[in-house]
């Protein structure tokens, strides 16, 4: 992979439609709530762990329990034949997952690419917090700045790619 160093963990546009379209809700969770949690997670999992930790440290974090300590494991990544056909197993990826419960009862989850227990804890904590009254604070103090940083990185990558846009012309053969 050839990318600028800062984009190795892949930038994200949190408003990315590919994340927001396939919404799945469970009973008791409003579809809106799930869409919002997924949009927040899409930003946090792609942010740098250092940035995330620095921003979370600036908000007041209530009492909470780790109901699942950060755990490293694998997911099997699937592709589709021809891009849109039958699924097949492409290969595995390392992930870290965690779950927290706030004293007020909200449960937050995380599962993300890579092996970073602290980041998994912070994402699960934020997922719990955005289900509380603290949601606007988390959005303003944590998610929005990370979203802006990722968007900036992505914009630069797109501009660099665009400079390699190519137009080929076919030439008439001079055979006759």
């Amino acid at each position: 992979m050839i990318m600028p160093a800062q984009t190795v963990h892949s930038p994200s546009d949190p408003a990315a439609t590919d994340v927001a379209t396939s919404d799945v809700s469970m009973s008791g969770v409003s579809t809106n709530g799930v869409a919002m949690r997924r949009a927040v997670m899409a930003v946090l999992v792609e942010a740098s762990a250092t940035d995330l930790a620095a921003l979370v440290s600036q908000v007041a974090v209530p009492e909470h329990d780790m109901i699942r300590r950060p755990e490293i494991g694998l997911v099997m990544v699937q592709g589709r034949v021809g891009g849109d056909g039958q699924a097949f197993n492409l290969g595995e990826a390392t992930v870290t997952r965690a779950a927290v419960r706030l004293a007020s009862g909200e449960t937050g989850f995380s599962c993300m690419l890579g092996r970073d227990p602290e980041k998994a804890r912070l994402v699960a904590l934020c997922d719990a917090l955005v289900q509380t009254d603290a949601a606007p604070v988390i959005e303003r103090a944590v998610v929005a700045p990370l979203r802006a940083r990722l968007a900036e990185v992505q914009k630069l990558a797109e501009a660099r790619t665009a400079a390699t846009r190519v137009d080929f012309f076919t030439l008439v053969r001079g055979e006759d």
Partner: protein
Amino acid sequence: MYVAVKGGERAIENAHRLLAHERRGDRSLPEITTAQIAEQMTLAVDRVMTEGSLYDRELAALAVKQARGDLIEAIFLLRAFRATLPRFGTTLPLDTAAMRIRRRISAAFKDLPGGQVLGPTFDYTHRLLEPSCSDPAEPATAEAAAGPTPRVTDLLAADDLIETTARPAGDGGETPPGDLTREALTFPAERDLRLQNLARGDEGFLLALGYSTQRGYGRTHPFAGEIRLGEVALEFFAEDAGFALPLGRITVTECQTINQFKGSASTPPRFTRGYGLAFGHCERKAMSMALVDRALRARELDEEVKAPAQDEEFVLSHSDNVQATGFVEHLKLPHYVDFQAELGLVRRMRRDHEAASGSSREASSDDPAPEQIREAAE
């Protein structure tokens, strides 16, 4: 049969110390870091992730370092590490149409909706060694075009000119694909298992097989319909959360080949397709995979199976370089008991031969009997 040996502990330990010393190289030079490998030896890392069948850039970079740049050894290390971790489940199938594209080319169409971008490529370089390739200029930038970048094959499929791979609409209850890391491969193997096998298969092996199809051994006349490289989002349905969690993005390379036609009395002729998909930027691998995928569809497309690349048992049984290197390299391990047995056999055969040639010198036949040749070869 392999008979184990004992002993040599001291020598083995010292050999490993010597290995570590050699790996470090000249100690007056700085030690290379895994971050440097991950950032500057990116394509080696991508190959190790693809064939190690584990997406983790840091681990793959560590494996490359530990293996002294021997990529098959690094792939072996990654596979071994993978076996130590639990599997939480399976992602939702990734969608390459929603890729954030960093490279997209078609050798079949000049003008694509969404355009062609060369991205970071070796193509069109002069292949001249440049002693000072450090400190490159800042990349140029340009206004990025908005709008979707549909897969070229989807555009052709809209005109019914190419076979479609899309699932029928309303296909809710999809059967999970086979997984050769859980169940041993059996033959005939369906396309999901063949693609899994090819995705982790050795690039060199698939390259040679793909090349052989172009040279006439299972000719399928391919065009590179589209090659795209970029980042795709992954999601994982978590039972406890009750919804699909975004996992982040991975880099993949996809190759779609457009191949010659198939039709019948009831269906009009259409182009056929081959498919390649790999972790990271593994373009040669994805292209080779697509060529071999198409060749392996011979049975399905009623083509005569006569070339090695069309023989699925041959291809799929020999594509894995960890298995291959294990079996080839085990020949280095002590085989003293086996060899003693063979030594005894050849001595006995020589005695028999001498006795036979002594008694029938008049017949002057020096050729050993056919059974003896076969026995010696076993």
